[in-house]
């Protein structure tokens, strides 16, 4: 990565460490995500991908390291620096594997909730929510409850929900791995559009073809460390590390 203006950096992670019950799960991870870039994180199960993502909005508190999001230091040394956790989380949208929509609220209310809690006036929040649902192709489903929607629709509502507070970066944790191929296609289409609109994204995924297609940067994580990173063409096409090659081979075998 070449040196760019600092203002260009949306997420900066330096030497991040995190352990659970004394077991190191993130072991000195450093990573920079620039404005309008898409970073795909790939790797074996249990490698620490989800944990890394969750540290970025402090759903998980690291043990040590530096975390900067949208120009603000939110964690440094071994303590949280961020005064307003709510504000941080508003600037970091998150989309989960299991969608985690609020089942008691309609799609449009799911998208409105965070805005209302953040003080956006009712009518503005509503209009914004409808606009976002239309953007993900679900204007006609605005009044449906999650359980009345297919998995793909739910995940698209979850994306709209994550976008509602205009985050500087969107985090995705295996957004399509609970979905059938058709729903996967729907969701990936929406994500591709977001990418084209210049959204900054960090994406944990098993969809290597998609990663190859849309990501600007691919990071292979294993055993809590970044083993290899680079352009998709490099990491997925001509991996340098043995572990990366093994992983890619096992992936190909599964297909």
């Amino acid at each position, binding site marked *: 990565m070449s040196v760019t203006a600092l203002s260009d950096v949306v997420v900066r992670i330096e030497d991040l460490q995190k352990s659970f019950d004394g077991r190191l799960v993130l072991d000195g991870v450093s990573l920079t995500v620039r404005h309008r870039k898409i970073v795909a994180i790939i790797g074996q199960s249990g490698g620490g991908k989800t944990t890394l993502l969750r540290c970025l*909005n402090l*759903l998980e508190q690291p043990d040590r390291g530096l975390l900067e999001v949208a120009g603000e230091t939110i964690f440094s040394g071994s303590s949280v620096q961020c005064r307003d*956790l*709510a*504000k*941080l*989380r*508003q600037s*970091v*949208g*998150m989309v*989960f594997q*299991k969608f*985690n*929509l*609020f*089942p*008691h609220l*309609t799609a*449009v*209310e799911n998208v*409105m*909730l*965070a805005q209302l*809690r*953040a003080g956006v006036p*009712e*009518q503005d929040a*509503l*209009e914004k*929510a*409808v606009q976002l649902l239309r953007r993900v192709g679900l*204007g*006609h489903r*605005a*009044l449906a*409850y999650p359980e009345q929607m297919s998995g793909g629709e739910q995940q698209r509502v979850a994306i709209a*929900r*994550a976008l*509602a*507070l205009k985050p500087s970066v969107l985090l995705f944790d295996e957004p399509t791995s609970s979905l059938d191929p058709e729903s996967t296609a729907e969701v990936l289409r929406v994500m591709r559009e977001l990418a084209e609109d210049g959204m900054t994204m960090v994406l944990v995924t098993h969809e290597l073809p998609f990663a190859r297609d849309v990501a600007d940067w691919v990071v292979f994580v294993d055993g809590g460390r970044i083993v290899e990173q680079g352009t998709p063409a490099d990491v997925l096409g001509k991996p340098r590390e043995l572990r990366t090659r093994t992983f890619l081979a096992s992936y190909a075998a599964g297909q």
Partner: protein
Amino acid sequence: MMFEVPWGEYAPALLDGLERTVGYTIASFAGAAVLGLALALLRVSRHRALRIPAAIYTEVFKNIPLLAIIFVTYFGLASAGLKLDVFSAGCVSLIVFYAAYLSEIFRAAISGVHGGQQEAAEALGLGKISTFAYVVFPQALRSALPGTNTMLVDLLKSTSLLVTISAAELMSEGRLITSATFRALEVYLVIAAIYFGLCYPLSQGLLWLERKIRAGVPLTPKRRRRLKAARAILEGAST
């Protein structure tokens, strides 16, 4: 043999008793729900110091007969110098007893809300209180409803135990009539029918409410307005 009791004569007294029964039920249930929710929150807390006393409370009151609680609250506390009036003593007894049961139901409902919900809410920047109020509580309420409703009907029926502290509710009136007429069976059947007439519509009404809520029908005017506004925007575009 049946209906030899001059019910017409006793109707005003029974109506009076009915009114008291309903009064005890409403006041006690409201109190028990509040105390039960507080206990449930203590019991899902991360701190042992909060969890344990709440657990002990629940175990104690779940395992002694309500009659004993009523007796001790009214007479026992009086001997100890705290003289609650009949209504307060009756309500306090029912509240402390049913709060124990309700806290179990509420606790199960709260911990039954999927962990991902809390996480999603936090990831959206909702604070602890907002997360509970707008995400966890509404879902917990839904799964707690059936058990809670059973308890409400049970509480209504249990007001009959307040006889012993001269609460003058329905069952007390029934006993008075029995003693005057010596027609216990007839009186008990009529009293049972009155209780059924109270409880059945109540439980059916609650079931109806349960179904409405499960079907996602908006119950508050605010939500109804919001959904109407959403519909307006959506339809405005389609025309």
